[in-house]
């Protein structure tokens, strides 16, 4: 029997039902004659509270609410990649076919294509004992990615029958197995999973491999590990979205889930256009082949915005279970927090700081804790990394969302307004940012990049810190009065800032830089520093050093040396030697 209730009251995205309805907490419901999707968020004897994921305009009291018995969940099967969904996994391109350019309400489209037949290779045989996580078949989902369909986590049993390899839809039964209690169960490619519950794993590993992004300030100065978490806070116009786009384009993750949560429609269109054209350097296939977009733009219903973050992380965990490294871009978690605030306000809950509900911190931590490098149920290793943009009100990092996020992430890439105003991009400020992964990743850098990588990196950071304290003096009395060795610190720091930290996302080479080039660039800059310092200690004035164009030359090396010609750096080393000799000769 279908459990139903009658709508009693409506207030924005929140709908009330009077009386005891026997609905379950977090259950998915259909609301009203248009059967809008909703979720039960509070229950008591007198009334049931439901949040609706679509516009509630035109709903009347007295219309029916129908229970579905399931929690809000997503369908997991081939067809997720190279697709764009709204916050509750409804494909936007199908919605467009159904309702035209504008998203109307109550659209009935299935999450994934149910008609499409996938070329399937079965990987289990009758008699085999299988359990949650066992791969039952493989499907080439896109040119770049093999989709491994798995047994749902809580199922276990012995395979009775298996279909032969061939083409099947995602709902056709492929495997019949006998459960431990003797009953038979059919498995197909598709499985459902509630978005608010993390998919189970065996255990968590320490994060020891970096997520290489090709962005110098990230990879070298503030690296994030595979399975790690990072926050990118910044006021408007400081480049949060650009940073996220760059990581989504160039990072060495296998799968990218890009969540546009309460952001601009045009931005999602841009991602869709760009990623279809751009080629993934690793696989040689279009970037969209490894990407899923979840678009809940700022004018789409607020409850679905709240759900979009969970939808994204659930899809990510599913691909992690197949043994892939997945990276989530959540742009922006502040919009999600504001959705929480908005709904909390409608429910007349007691607000904590700045109107945000008191459970903001626990919701944030629950979300970020779903990241990690895991041993999956089937023994494979996979990771989910979360990179969340934060849009602090007024660019002020002391607001509750930034502060609470800071407690649960281990990487903090603080974007700075004054850098953005001077069009220094990426505008990640080297003094406010940090990464706690550096220690964990040091062995990897030592083995895979170079022994002295971490050492070089630390020297760079030291120079930048010295520069900042010297700038305090310069601001008061000008740079002319500084001794020459301190002037050199300023000059080298300028080289670091312009030549190394600044990176041009629109330059074909500079947009993504391999680790080897990053290391070489660092070495050249530090070599220049060492040689120039030697000259200064011999009482050569800095003005003589600056007459040579070597500093400008080193700044320009990011453009002048193509990514695939690291041997060209040797010429720079020689040139620095020549510069040293020249200065010595001239001033002997």
């Amino acid at each position, binding site marked *: 029997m279908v459990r139903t209730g009658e709508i009693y009251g409506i*207030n924005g995205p929140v709908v009330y039902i009077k009386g005891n309805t026997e609905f379950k907490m977090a259950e998915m419901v259909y609301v009203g004659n248009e059967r809008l999707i909703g979720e039960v968020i509070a229950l008591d004897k007198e009334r049931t509270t439901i949040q609706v994921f679509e516009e509630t305009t035109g709903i*009347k009291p007295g219309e029916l609410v129908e229970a579905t018995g399931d929690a809000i969940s997503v369908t997991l099967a081939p067809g997720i990649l190279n697709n764009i969904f709204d916050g509750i996994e409804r494909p936007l391109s199908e919605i467009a076919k159904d309702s035209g*350019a504008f998203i109307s309400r109550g659209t009935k489209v299935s999450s994934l294509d149910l008609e499409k037949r996938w070329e399937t290779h079965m990987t289990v045989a009758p008699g085999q004992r299988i359990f949650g996580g066992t791969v039952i078949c493989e499907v080439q989902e896109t040119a770049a990615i093999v989709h491994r369909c798995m047994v749902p986590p809580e199922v276990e049993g012995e395979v009775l029958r298996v279909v032969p390899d061939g083409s099947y839809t995602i709902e056709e039964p492929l495997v019949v197995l006998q459960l431990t209690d003797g009953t038979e169960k059919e498995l197909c490619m598709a499985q459902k999973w509630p978005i608010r519950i993390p998919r189970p794993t065996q255990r968590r590993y320490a994060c020891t491999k970096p997520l290489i992004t090709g962005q110098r300030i990230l990879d070298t100065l503030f690296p994030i590990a595979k399975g790690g978490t990072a926050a990118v806070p910044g006021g*408007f116009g400081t480049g949060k979205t650009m940073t996220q786009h760059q990581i989504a384009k160039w990072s060495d993750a296998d799968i990218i889930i890009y969540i546009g949560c309460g952001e601009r*429609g045009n931005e999602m269109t841009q991602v*869709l256009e760009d990623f279809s054209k751009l080629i993934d350097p690793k696989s040689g296939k279009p970037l969209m082949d490894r990407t899923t977009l979840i678009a809940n733009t700022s004018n789409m219903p607020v409850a679905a915005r709240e759900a979009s973050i969970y939808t994204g992380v659930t899809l990510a965990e599913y691909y992690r279970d197949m043994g892939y490294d997945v990276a989530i871009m959540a742009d922006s978690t502040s919009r999600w927090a*504001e959705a929480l605030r908005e709904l909390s306000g409608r429910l007349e809950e007691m607000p904590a700081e700045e*109107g945000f509900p008191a459970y903001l911190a626990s919701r944030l931590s629950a979300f970020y804790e779903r990241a990690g490098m895991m041993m999956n149920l089937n023994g494979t290793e996979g990771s989910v990394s979360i990179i969340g943009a934060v849009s602090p009100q007024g660019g002020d990092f002391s607001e509750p969302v930034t502060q609470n996020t800071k407690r649960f992430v281990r990487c903090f890439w603080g974007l700075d307004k004054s850098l953005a105003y*001077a069009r220094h991009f990426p505008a990640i400020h080297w003094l406010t940012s940090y990464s706690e992964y550096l220690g964990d990743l040091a062995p990897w850098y030592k083995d895979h990049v170079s022994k002295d990588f971490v050492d070089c990196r630390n020297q760079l950071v030291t120079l930048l810190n010295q520069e900042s304290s010297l700038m305090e003096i310069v601001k008061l009395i000008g740079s002319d009065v500084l001794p020459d060795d301190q002037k050199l610190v300023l000059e080298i720091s300028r080289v670091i800032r312009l030549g190394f930290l600044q990176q041009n996302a629109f330059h074909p080479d500079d947009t993504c830089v391999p680790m080897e080039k990053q290391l070489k660039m660092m070495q050249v800059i530090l070599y220049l520093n060492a040689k120039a310092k030697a000259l200064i200690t011999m009482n050569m004035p800095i003005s003589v050093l600056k007459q040579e164009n070597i500093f400008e030359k080193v700044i320009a090396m990011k453009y002048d040396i193509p990514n695939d010609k690291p041997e060209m750096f040797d010429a720079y080393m020689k040139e620095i030697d020549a510069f040293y000799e020249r200065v010595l000769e001239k001033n002997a």
Partner: protein
Amino acid sequence: MSIQYLGLSEINGPLIALEGVQNASYEEIVEIIIDGKKKELGRIVECYADKAVIQVFGSTDNMSLRNTHTKLSGHPMEIPLSTDILGRTFNGIGQPIDGLGEIVSDIRRNVNGQPMNPVVREYPRNYIRTGFSAIDGLTTLIRGQKLPIFSGNGLPHDQLAAQLVKQASLGDDSDEKFAIVFAAMGVKHDVADFFRRAFEESGVSEHVTMFLNLANDPVVERLITPKVALTAAEYLAFECGMHILVVLTDMTSFAEAMREVSSSKGEIPSRKGYPGYLYSELATIYERAGIIHGSSGSVTQIPILTMPNDDITHPIPDLTGYITEGQVVLDRNLHGQNIYPPISVLPSLSRLMKDGIGAGYTREDHQDLANQLFSAYAKVGDARALASVIGEDELSPIDKKYLAFGRAFEEEFVGQDPNENRTILETLDIGWRLLGLLPREELDRIDTKILEKYYSPQE
């Protein structure tokens, strides 16, 4: 047939409550007749089995608990639309106030609009020439963009907007179908008159549709004005294939009205007393800009807002900046120096600029030149700060050059004659001339090839 309900159960500011209603739906429009004479419109904002809370668009003066008749319309707020709306003037809820009669049309559209599907959006790429160097050169306006003007009281934002609309619409491709939708929320009579005159003088008033909610008009009406205007804009753009420029002024009044209504509804406030849904509500307005695949029209939005106390971190400009695709910020200091338009270039930004300029759109050097001007002008700020401490004479030679560059930049690049309409090439050439004030090694944002082609130092 329609049932009329006699009397009310509660009146509280702009909100009234009606008990014992049947079949009311959320966001439905109702008509309220006071004493059998005066008519007001209202909208249902909360709705229970036998009670509805109604927001009245007019005034609740003279209403009592017994003298009103309330009629449910059975549908959300709608307006009739046809191309006849061009050249007409309406009030804040879309009723004609120019004495030329009702709009007769079968086409009626729900003013609440629906979110545009990101899949059918077309990424905006064609730039609009506004004739202002500071905008064309550094924060280029793109067709289909939403680019607000952040201003303050007493700054010439109205003049800027009027001139911008005039020059943009009469720009290089005036043969295409264009129109202007102008929505005023809580603006002064003078301001509305100024715009009307400006449109008449520039000869575009046949292409302008005005929606006016003036400062002494009912506050609640303001909440619906931008939605009515954008519904008209979307109709003209996507169904009639026109290029629409929408000017919304002043968004601050809109947000204030929202706060007023929210507080009388007894809602829990978030920042500075504004309701928690301020962001969502602003987004439903700003996001109604763009281009749709397969439609020849576009909606470009230029909202104007006055920053309370010139504070850009105030919730209204702050949330706006997070939704819109950039912003043009006006500066009191430049205005004080008699520079027009007083655009503060550093905090100004156009997010869509990067894809709409360069070779094939404007000129190959545009992006590099803009980056360099931004970066050099940021250094001017540092040099000025230092000069204010140690005096201009003590500055190093290079800092002095930056000071000279800064002055020239503000006067010659940002500043221009009122009514001067510069072409994009003029703008770029002025930019290069100013960069000539700086030595070549300071220009670190420009590709070497471009630098060689365009840079010439001047003494």
